[in-house]
């Protein structure tokens, strides 16, 4: 199955947590996942539901803080 992760196409079965891990890569936040929020198809997925499997065509956004005015 296919899904989009932060705008990039991905393949194969995955949970939200898998997606977060792949998005974070080596990023410092990885450990804690602190300051991270996830949306699937625009809706928030709370941490408690990250075990949820993604469905074909899902658009996943993994977001964190950046400098902003």
């Amino acid at each position, binding site marked *: 199955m296919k899904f989009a992760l*932060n705008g990039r196409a991905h393949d194969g079965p995955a949970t939200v947590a898998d997606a977060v891990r792949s998005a*974070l890569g080596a990023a*410092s936040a990885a450990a804690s996942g602190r300051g991270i929020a996830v949306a699937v198809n625009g809706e*928030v997925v709370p941490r408690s539901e990250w075990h949820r499997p993604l469905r074909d065509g899902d658009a996943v956004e993994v*977001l964190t*803080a*950046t*400098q*902003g005015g």
Partner: protein
Amino acid sequence: MDELAIAGRRFGSRLILGTGGAANHAQLADAITASGTELVTVALRRVDPAAAGSVLDVIERCGVGVLPNTAGCRTAEQAVRTARLAREAFATDWVKLEVIGDEDSLLPDPVELLDAAETLVGEGFTVLPYTNDDPILARRLEEAGCAAVMPLAAPIGTGLGIRNPHNLALICEQAEVPVICDAGIGTASDAAQAMELGCSAVLLATAVTRAADPALMARAMREAVSAGRAARLAGRIPRRPLARASTSFEGIADL
């Protein structure tokens, strides 16, 4: 003690600092400290695996609060979704609500902004909307339940100062929530003037983060906001068309 209260939360500083535009985290930390601010804004963006450290670390080290914004959103729906994600990420229901009409002027879209504000207030958010300087829209945002209104001085990043002091004064006269002058401040006297016009606080980013010496400009802004607030409370002299002697002619010598 002359504190600022927004939605019941008290602040000793009347300066809110945007973190956008800082060259690096060290410079940002210095600016935050020099500004004396207790609240700084951040944006929400896709995680960047290559990123070296997080702006959150800086904010934590400085011991200030975080105010997420919805910068870059063009529709009420985008802004509402972004606010929900920010609540999830930062465990705060405060949001600087920004819904822009285009990417050249970055001016707020009044209709989308009001729509988003109504939705977010309904969901229990503490909404601080970045708005234009229209007194009517400001009142409608207040009526919608916003915790403050944040009219611009001038478009974001222009440094043009207060384009329309008359509107800003009208907004301050009528508002029963804090009025925070947001965007367009270029230098210290602009910030002081905003406070003299009746604003409760000033929010700025570029003026400090892109100044040649951000920490020094941050100090200037801290003093300017404090000066403008004091001048407002002190009751300035009236403007008069003709001169009035500060030295009496009485008892002048015949030389």
